[in-house]
Every structure is written in C-alpha cells, then in structure tokens.
C-alpha cells in the first residue's frame, strides 16, 4: 500500500481528534461521576467552577499539574515514574481499533472512522488489557510501601483472574462473526445485535470489565478502608492524575468495546452512527457509575470465587453451547 499526503494527513488527523475527544470525555466522565454520585447520595456535588460546575475538570487539571511531585526516598525511581504511563497508555491504545462510526467519504476517498482495522483486533484488545496489569503491579512495588504492595498484589491477581473470563466471553462473539476484525464484528450485527444471541456472554463480559476497571464492587486493589489508597498511595500530582485518568479512559474504552461486541456498535435507526455510538458508550459509563453508587465491595475470597468458580466455567460452557448451536443450525 502506498501512502500519499492526503492519506497521511487523514491518519494524523484521526489520531489527533481521537486523542482530544478521549481526554475530554475522560475529564468530563470524572465530573459526571461526581455529580451523579452526589445526586444518588442526596448531596449536591461540585457545582462551583463555571456554570453547573462544567469547568471543574479544568480546575482539577491545573491543580494536579501545579502540585508538588513527590517520590518517596525508598522508591525505585525509574519504575516509580514509569508506572503511571504504563497504566494509562494501554487504555489509550485500545481506541486505535475502535470504529466509532460508518465509513465516510472525505476529500474524495472512503475513510474508516477507525485508526486501524487490524486483522487481529480482538486479540489486540486482549493483549493490551493483559499489559495494563504492569502499571498497577509496578506502581505499587516501586513505591516500597506495604499498603501499595498489598494493593498491587491484589490488583495483579484480580486482573489475571478476570482477564480469563473476559477473553472467554468474547469467543462466542468471534464464533458468530467468524472474524477477529472489529469492523466485521459490527457488520455481522447488521440484522440483530449479538446481545440477543449471547445474553450470557454479555453478562459475563460486563462483570469482567467492571472487575478489569477495578471499580466497586471489585475495587479491592485500592480499598480505602483498609489500604489507604492501594497501589497509588504514594503518588501525587500528575502522576496520580495519570492513574486516575487512565481508569476513566479505560471505562470509556471498555464501554465502547462492550457496545461493539454486543450492541452492534454504531448501528442504529434514525440517528447518525456516531451519535448512536456515543449514546451506547454513555449508557455503559452511566451503568459503571450507577453500580458504584449501589453495590458494596466484595470480600476478597468472594471476588476470587466469582471469577474462577463461577464466571470462567460458565463462559466455557457458553462456548460449548454456541459451538453446538452453530453446528446444528
């Protein structure tokens, strides 16, 4: 494939727009979470900066950037400073394979609204989610503090466990779409979204992604009541900010993937595709916040029990059932 100036400009443009949109969305998701949680807990939430508190993310960013950047004297300096980036980068990279809308015609050529349509898209996502573990593990280890280390070990074992059920719950989707390519998966849902055929896989995937995001009820790596703040206890300023923003970028990415795999991605009647995709992602983000406002934290043995003895066998059975169904149909 040869690239001319317009191709390169389009690619750079896509990447820049995507970056801007993701970071803005993540910043506003933080605000949305604080407002919605406030509303659920019968209090007001941040409403001072700008109209209805809409400039709060800006104020937060300025605060984080101007804060003192502390590195504990006993920390492993190299890994301590690398870890936040290791946590945020996989979440951002996931967006490279997400198609946000139907292909469009721009400058006289067809443009996919997707940075790259990899042949191994689903595997690319699984690879990134398995790499995301390192940020948490190394952040806590390099801090050289016992709360951080405990948080890291919890985070490691939790992510390994739920990655398995997450990956297995995607196998039926790949079986139905007959492709790892995300655009093929969306196109295979032109008639009917996969949630209709695979409600069980959807449920397993949803629980697993909440665990992958380390959100309540699975937030044991950063359980405030027992571990101060878990793996990021020793972090301050923008390094903490990267962990924090990385978590919200991850929520958006996983919400987007859930809607791609099970709800037909950008497909929908009447409204333009990008708007449909945004609505679906927003629904998932709201669900994450809603769950956080509703459920208590699991105990550690319950967490492991749920992952290994319930979700993983269920996902395996689901694969078997899907195989039979496809063979006998």
């Amino acid at each position, binding site marked *: 494939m040869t690239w001319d100036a317009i191709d390169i400009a389009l690619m750079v443009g896509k990447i820049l727009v995507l970056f801007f949109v993701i970071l803005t969305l993540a910043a506003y998701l933080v605000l949305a979470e604080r407002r919605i949680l406030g509303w659920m807990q019968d209090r007001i939430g941040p409403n001072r900066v700008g109209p209805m508190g809409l400039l709060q993310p800006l104020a937060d960013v300025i605060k984080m950037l101007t804060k003192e950047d502390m590195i504990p004297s006993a920390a*492993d300096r190299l890994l301590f400073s690398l870890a936040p980036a290791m946590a945020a980068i996989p979440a951002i990279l996931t967006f490279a394979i997400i198609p946000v809308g139907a292909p469009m015609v721009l400058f006289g050529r067809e443009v996919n609204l997707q940075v790259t349509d*990899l042949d*191994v898209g689903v595997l690319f996502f699984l*690879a990134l989610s*398995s790499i995301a573990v*390192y940020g948490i593990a*190394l952040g806590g280890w390099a801090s050289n503090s016992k709360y951080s280390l405990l948080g890291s*070990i919890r985070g*490691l074992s939790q992510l390994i466990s739920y990655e398995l059920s997450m990956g297995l719950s995607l196998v039926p989707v790949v079986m139905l779409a007959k492709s790892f390519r995300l655009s093929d998966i969306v196109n295979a849902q032109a008639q009917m979204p996969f949630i209709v055929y695979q409600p069980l896989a959807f449920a397993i995937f949803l629980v697993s992604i909440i665990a992958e995001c380390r959100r309540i009820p699975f937030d044991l790596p950063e359980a405030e009541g027992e571990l101060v703040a878990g793996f990021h206890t020793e972090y301050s300023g923008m390094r903490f900010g990267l962990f924090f923003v990385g978590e919200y970028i991850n929520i958006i990415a996983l919400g987007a993937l859930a809607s791609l795999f099970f709800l037909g991605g950008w497909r929908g009647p009447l409204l333009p595709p990008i708007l449909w995709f945004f609505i679906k992602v927003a629904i998932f983000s709201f669900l994450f916040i809603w769950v956080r406002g509703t459920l208590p934290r699991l105990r550690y043995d319950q967490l492991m029990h749920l992952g290994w003895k319930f979700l993983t066998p269920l996902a395996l059975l689901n694969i078997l059932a899907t195989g039979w169904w496809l063979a006998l149909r």
Partner: protein
Amino acid sequence: METTLFYILSAVTVFGTLCAITARQAVRAIVYLVTSFFALALIFYILGAPLVAAFEVIIYAGAIMVLFLFVIMMLELGSPEKLPKPRLADWWPAVILFLAVVGSVTVIAASRQPAIAPGFTAISVREFSQALFTRYGIAVEAISMQLLFALVGALYLGRRR
C-alpha cells in the same frame, strides 16, 4: 521504511534482553524482558504474522511474565543485596550455550542460500488457523496433552497433605 523499523526493533530486542540478563533486580529484569517481547512482537507483525505478534504479547508478556512478577512480589525476592556475586564457575553453562548458538547459526548461514523472498505476504488469521488445525493438528494435540499433564502434575504436587 519497514527495514529501518526492523533494525530499530531488533536493537531494542537485543538491548532489552541484555539488560534483562544483567539487571541485579528481578523486577527490573522482568520489565526489560517485557520490553524486548514487545519489540519482538512488532517484528513478527511487520514480517506479516499478526497472530503470532498478538500471542507473543498475550502469552509471554501478559501471562507468563505477569505470573513471574506475581511470585516475586509475593515472596519479596526483589532485594539484590542478598544475592551472591556470580562466580567464575557459574559462567561456564552460559559460555557453552553461547558457543552452541553461535556455532549453529554459522552452520545454518553457511549452508543455506539466502532464500528470504523480498516481497513476503501477510498471513491472515483464517489461513493460519487452517494450517494449524489440519496440517499441524497432531502436533497441536500433542502439545495440549503435554500442557494438561503439566497441569495435573502441578495440582498433584501442590495438593494439601
């Protein structure tokens, strides 16, 4: 462009592996090794094997090294002060292995024509899996049985007495 990228990635792979061997701290060694796996995965990708690239990251960087890291963190093996310096006698196996690798590479390079086609094609997932489960089906089954034996053995050794 691909050739330049290949040399950059190869340099990263070799450098990462060297650092992993020489690092005094086990956790840092893991980070270096993961870096080299990453670069290796990208090399596989530009050589037209996207599936191998993905599995390199998922299995080696994302599963095996994470388990290593988990064990090191659990047992707190990360303190390098306690480790003794490697003695001269410890170097012999490494030297012998190194000579064996250099020897075999030289033999292969000398005996073979440069058969690498300039225009290689990327293999799609479909072709790859068809070859894997038909042509190499027996090998795949044998390996999976072997893994199952290892699993059962580990369960037996780790059972509660």
